[in-house]
């Protein structure tokens, strides 16, 4: 019986995550972790499209902002119930994602990246300039916290932490199931070679569009949670600066890996909080770190770990084969 199995490790991590509010007496850490979980949900969205389907989207900060603003406007201006607004915010993001995906997915590779970068910037500009709707640079103030579900309230830091944690776990579970299913294999076949995917009968456009819409759903969900957590949003959440932060989390953690988005987001958010005293000079650390990781570990920290595990397993296998071979010769 091995105790250090993957399953037990994951259970231990989940138990730790649930008991964290009792361990950390400080609300600051709780706040930081909640925020990184929210970012991580958005990064999972980018990972589904960029990591597994092979389309590097730079519009996802825009979809994050659409989710945030949809929730903000529906709760503040339309005074809608929080949970209904949350669902609507996700649906609005998906609808816009669908329309943009229809056009964007006609391009490929760097053209897709450039196109989506422009889309992201346009979304930012619309939010910034459409003052009648979004209040422009003043931002939206007074977004309500998540509404009660029966006796459960979300007015403390710990309760909000749990809410976001549950969403994050759900997102990870969905991602886990997708990438291990035939649908996930289909996405990876498209990432590998779109021509080959078509040859084996895969409708690439339909699958790419589904992956795109689902990835905008995750980004929109993260945005909506962000709005209700921070309670104030400005156009800056849709800026390219945020987009590249998210991309950095993904690349450092591991693009195309299941744990990468969480690992990268936690690591970089915590690191960046602890390096606050360096102000803008933090980038002097992040820049080289990112370069080194991309050169030596193109699949990030998680990818490097998987490769190491894989190699160890291969070595064990060839070791066993070698022994069998020797035995066969002796016999």
């Amino acid at each position, binding site marked *: 019986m091995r105790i250090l199995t993957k399953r037990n490790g994951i259970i231990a991590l989940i138990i730790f995550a649930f008991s964290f509010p009792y361990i950390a007496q400080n609300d600051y850490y709780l706040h930081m972790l909640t925020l990184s979980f929210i970012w991580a949900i958005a990064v999972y969205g980018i990972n589904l499209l960029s990591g597994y389907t092979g389309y590097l989207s730079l519009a996802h900060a825009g979809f994050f902002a659409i989710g945030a603003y949809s929730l903000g406007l529906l709760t503040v201006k339309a005074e809608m119930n929080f949970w209904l607004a949350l669902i609507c915010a996700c649906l609005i993001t998906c609808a816009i994602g669908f329309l943009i995906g229809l056009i964007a997915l006609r391009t490929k590779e760097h053209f897709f990246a450039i196109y989506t970068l422009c889309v992201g910037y346009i979304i930012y500009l619309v939010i910034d300039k459409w003052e009648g709707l979004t209040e422009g640079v003043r931002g939206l103030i007074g977004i309500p916290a998540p509404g009660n579900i029966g006796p459960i309230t979300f007015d403390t830091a710990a309760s909000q932490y749990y809410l976001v944690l549950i969403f994050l776990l759900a997102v990870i579970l*969905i991602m886990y*199931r*997708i990438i291990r*299913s*035939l*649908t*996930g*294999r*289909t996405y*990876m*076949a498209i990432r*590998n*070679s779109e*021509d*080959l995917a*078509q*040859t*084996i*009968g*895969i*409708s*690439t456009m339909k699958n790419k569009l*589904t992956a795109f819409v*689902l990835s905008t759903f995750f980004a929109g969900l993260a945005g909506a949670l962000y709005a209700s957590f921070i309670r104030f949003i400005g156009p800056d959440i849709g800026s390219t600066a945020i987009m590249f932060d998210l991309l950095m989390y993904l690349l450092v953690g591991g693009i195309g890996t299941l744990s990468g988005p969480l690992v990268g987001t936690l690591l970089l958010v915590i690191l960046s909080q602890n390096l606050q005293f360096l102000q803008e000079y933090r980038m002097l650390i992040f820049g080289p770190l990112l370069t080194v990781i991309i050169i030596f570990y193109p699949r990030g920290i998680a990818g490097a770990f998987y490769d190491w595990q*894989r190699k160890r397993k*291969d070595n064990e296998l060839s070791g066993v084969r070698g022994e069998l071979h020797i035995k066969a010769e002796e016999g």
Partner: protein
Amino acid sequence: MLIETKNLTKRFGGLAAVNNVDFSIEKGRINAIIGPNGAGKSTFFNLISGFHRPTSGTVLFKGIDITKLPANEIAGLGISRTFQTTSLFDQSTVLDNVIVGHRLRTKSNLVDAILRTKRLKREEAACRDKAMEVLDIVGLTESADRMVSNISQEEKKRTAIALALATEPEIIFLDEPAAGINPDETEGLTELIKKLNQSGLTVCLIEHKMHMIMNLADHIMVLNYGEKIAEGTPKEIRGNEAVIKAYLGGSASA
């Protein structure tokens, strides 16, 4: 006739890569397309498999016009192909590469994936069984769990054929299956193609290795500058003056 092309033409700007080619493939035979480099052989494959739209002409599969169908629907009808350069996924095992080949015969979607429905589990098992079955046919059962990055060029060719077989085709188009592998391995691959054909699969291949083609093919078409210059049995082709001229250049006496 399983496949028929009529006046098939593809122009890239001023260049006629394939010019007015009539060709038919009978069910159950091994067909070959040969010709010097740049003769339009791969373009001809691309036209049949739906990667390029022909400028004019038609492609018929069992009498049905498939000229305008997208590549994935053509695959669904039972027309499969491999590429000259094998584009497999290096970071994954042989088995994982082949499993997705049966995807087109399954129906489960994103919702099935998220809810992990019975249909998904059943279809995943079917895909896995199919993959093991075709790996057995191409003789790669032992290598199923190896990473593609660690297998030989010849094994990669076999994996690509296995992937094409997993789609359950009636006809398979092989684009230079023996390119870049040694004579012994070529022999093995020839045997594999014969075996596939004997099990009822119609084969059409492009190849430069004349010895292999002459041994293997029932029927050969020769392309030169996009035009069909000869067609017939290996024996007829061997004695055809136009073919000798195309390959050796200048007069046939050479």
